[in-house]
């Protein structure tokens, strides 16, 4: 009898569940469910075009901006730039003239010995619950010097900051990959970093994503015989650190869910949970924002941003940061070895039209060769928007009306990153039209970003290209100059247009070791003027970095890596 009753109860339960499921399926199939209204209680929903591909800054995907977003919200720097003013769009900009402590609460620099002494906080605790010690800093630099990851970003930045013995020997001599006393623990909470030669970039590089501090206890616990520096764990699970957030869930190509680090030394984050959701189509991110089904959307096209400006309850946040567009002309490819041709092409650039039709007004003309927001940036003298001058210069170069340029059809294949078609396609078309009016046989050549990177950075054989991806991560015009314009033989890094000017190299040799700020700035500005006079790049515009956010979201801030800092955000009460 009891069994029968139990059976009947079970049957009723099963039928109820079945009815529920049938109802659920019917509801869904009839599309009657829709989306529940978005609430702030669940956390912050961020829509982006790609979620982090990896989370190790020495890993294979550290150069991908979305990976950097994950890294900078999980890890913590020794020092950072102090907050500066809030711009007219409600975004706080760092004050690049002042540093403030993060994991290092204070520091002093012994100029005679070239030693930076850092005094670490005693209250910083990692997501794993381990307190910060000097061993964590030493481990971080030792790992960088091991160049054991897929990309030696940590080593590169330490090298750029002039840390002693972080030189190219690490790639040829395994013994050089072991950390010596150039970074050493003095006591449990004091560390010294020694420079090989004077270099003013040491503090700036410590603010970047490539030298954030690992929790060495957790990293060592995750090490294996094959992977002693725990690249696999840091890249594919989470980089253990002392940052404001910890990884709650991460599904590649789908979502990254962050949970506030309860031990964070600046206090737990105001928004406890962040869901970064991948929505590849910018049109869908735009539509979801308009339907108020998300709090923040990144990387909308300029047209979509312009269309959302007047939507009630949404706010466009933007900053004139370090994103720019320039025209790449390779000195190694004729006729771009002719300065007159370079100036003619630059003069033909329809900058005003590009600002109006490509960026919908959210850009300003750029004449320099380093981001104008960076200390030491100088404006240049490249002329654009002047077709008459362009025609005259072409004639002077021996190509009146473009006649003779047909000998170089491959040189005028205007390459750009195909994945950026929505933004760069219309701009490339405007430029092509302007050039063709002058008789320049320009054609369009959108290519995948990996191919673009290979030809630009490694083969350096890209003749003619539109580039909007170069953002020097270290905030310094000198660093930008070293990165792009100094010859390889003089310490240049990725001089992708094969530009060589001995006078500029000589200026760099003087500037790199100059510790007097005023004298160094003057030298760096001379470098920029030289590069500008030679049209090393043809600068076009500096465009605004945008986010679209729910009006309730406040506390926006910008950093040179263009990654949002979720710790700064909060919901309006």
């Amino acid at each position, binding site marked *: 009898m009891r069994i029968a009753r139990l059976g009947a109860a079970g049957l009723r339960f099963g039928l109820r569940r079945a009815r529920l499921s049938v109802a*659920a399926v019917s509801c869904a199939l009839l599309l009657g469910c829709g989306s529940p209204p978005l609430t702030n209680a669940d956390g912050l929903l961020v829509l982006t075009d790609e979620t982090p591909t990896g989370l190790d800054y020495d890993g294979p995907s550290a150069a991908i901006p979305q990976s950097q977003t994950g890294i900078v919200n999980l890890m913590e720097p020794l020092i950072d730039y102090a907050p500066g003013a809030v711009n007219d769009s409600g975004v706080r900009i760092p004050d690049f003239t002042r540093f403030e402590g993060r994991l290092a609460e204070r520091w002093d620099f012994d100029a005679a010995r070239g030693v930076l002494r850092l005094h670490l906080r005693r209250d910083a605790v990692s997501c794993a619950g381990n307190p910060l010690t000097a061993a964590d800093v030493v481990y971080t630099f030792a790992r960088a010097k091991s160049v054991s990851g*897929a*990309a030696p970003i940590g080593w590169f930045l330490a090298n750029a900051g002039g840390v002693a013995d972080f030189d190219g020997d690490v790639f040829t001599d395994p013994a050089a990959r072991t950390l010596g006393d150039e970074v050493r623990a003095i006591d449990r909470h004091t560390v010294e970093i020694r420079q090989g030669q004077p270099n003013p970039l040491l503090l700036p590089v410590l603010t970047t994503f490539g030298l954030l501090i690992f929790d060495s206890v957790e990293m060592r616990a995750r090490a294996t015989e094959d992977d002693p520096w725990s690249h696999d764990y840091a890249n*594919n699970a989470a980089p253990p650190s002392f940052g404001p957030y910890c990884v709650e869930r991460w599904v590649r190509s789908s979502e990254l869910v962050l949970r506030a680090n309860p031990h964070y030394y600046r206090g737990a984050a105001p928004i406890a949970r962040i869901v970064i959701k991948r929505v590849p*189509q910018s049109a869908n991110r735009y539509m979801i924002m308009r339907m108020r089904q998300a709090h923040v959307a990144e990387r909308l096209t300029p047209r979509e941003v312009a269309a959302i400006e007047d939507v009630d309850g949404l706010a466009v946040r933007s900053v004139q940061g370090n994103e720019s567009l320039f025209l790449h002309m390779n000195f190694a490819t004729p006729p771009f070895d002719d300065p007159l041709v370079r100036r003619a092409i630059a003069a033909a650039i329809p900058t005003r039209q590009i600002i109006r039709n490509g960026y919908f007004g959210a850009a300003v003309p750029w004449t320099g060769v380093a981001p104008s927001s960076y200390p030491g940036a100088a404006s240049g003298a490249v002329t654009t928007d002047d077709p008459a001058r362009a025609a005259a210069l072409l004639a002077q170069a021996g190509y009146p009306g473009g006649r003779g340029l047909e000998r170089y059809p491959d040189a005028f294949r205007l390459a750009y990153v195909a994945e950026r078609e929505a933004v760069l396609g219309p701009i490339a078309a405007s430029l092509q039209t302007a050039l063709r009016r002058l008789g320049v046989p320009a054609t369009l050549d959108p290519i995948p970003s990996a191919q673009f990177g290979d030809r630009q950075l490694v083969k350096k054989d890209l003749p003619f290209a539109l580039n909007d991806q170069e953002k020097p991560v270290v905030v310094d015009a000198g660093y930008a100059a070293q990165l792009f314009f100094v010859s390889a033989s003089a310490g240049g890094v990725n001089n992708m247009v094969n530009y060589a000017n001995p006078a500029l190299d000589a200026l760099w040799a003087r500037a790199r070791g100059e510790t007097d700020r005023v004298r160094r700035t003057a030298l760096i500005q001379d470098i920029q003027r030289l590069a500008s006079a030679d049209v090393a790049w043809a600068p076009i515009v500096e465009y605004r970095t945008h986010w679209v956010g729910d009006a309730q979201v406040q506390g926006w801030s910008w950093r040179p890596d263009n990654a949002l800092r979720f710790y700064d955000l909060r919901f309006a009460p």
Partner: protein
Amino acid sequence: MIARLVLRRIAIGAMQMAALAALVFFVIRLMPADPAARFVGLGASPEAYAAARATLGLDKPLLAQFADFLGFGAARGLIDGDLGRSWVSGESVAREIAAALPITLELVACGVALAVLAAFPIALLSARRPGGGADRAVLIYGLFAGSQPEFVWALGLVFVFFAQLGLAPGPLGRLSPFAEPPEPVTGFMTIDTLLAGRFEAFSDAVAHLALPAATLAIVLSGPIIKMLRDSLGRALKSDHVLFARASGLSENRVSAIALKSALAPTLALIGILFGFMLGGAVLVESVFALGGLGQYAVRSVLAFDYPAIQGVVLTIAAVSLLVYLITDAAQALIDPRVAT
């Protein structure tokens, strides 16, 4: 007889997979770029570049790389069932494919199932009265549905049902963003939510699958209806069906007999469409942010991620061969002449 067919197909499939493995390995290395560049974007010194090439194994001779890929080098390889590690993410390719494949299989299976469910009654209605109003409407629908790219349907459905009517959830993946996904068992969200006894999440998963599956169903139903309608038309005129009708069987019974005859070629088409959609559903996956195999394939190709490309090609080939095998076996069951 069917067992022999299956064994023969498995043997041929194994040879095809071996040839494909070699082909894809060498063909992708003809692509006009060097994947090492992407790694060293920030510090592209010659030393760093050389280090990246060594890390990827690209500094070795091509045949040595091939031996490594197959598993004859120091590390595990294809013969050990190891597809290597993605150069983009550093994660195991097999693990990444295992996460992406069920999403695509679930989408394609639901899309094909909806298309077939819609196709059978429509094709029957059309074939019973050739040249009638229903037949003409089906012809127009078949031409129209099949001629529109799937992303047009996808964006249109999102615009109407999400943005205008507010009936469907936003194109935000397989579940609502703040929903807790179930512990993966099969990787199929609908099945895993049911296995976890989470009916609310199941409803959410079905709601998020409805528009993408409907998109595929609209696109796929065109050719399926056309094939089924033509086959049915021929079957309804065949001798054995005429005999069945002359014997006084009911129209439904006659239709059932004709349908059995028309099923074999339609099954073959469904198998081909299923295999094609494993990689071809990429645009639907992209619009609905599903993160399936198609999107993984595109990402891998754009990044010149050789291990991931190899893994995707071999996986799609293996699943396609399996689907073809199943449809061939089903055809053989319906019509034993196929197995000979």
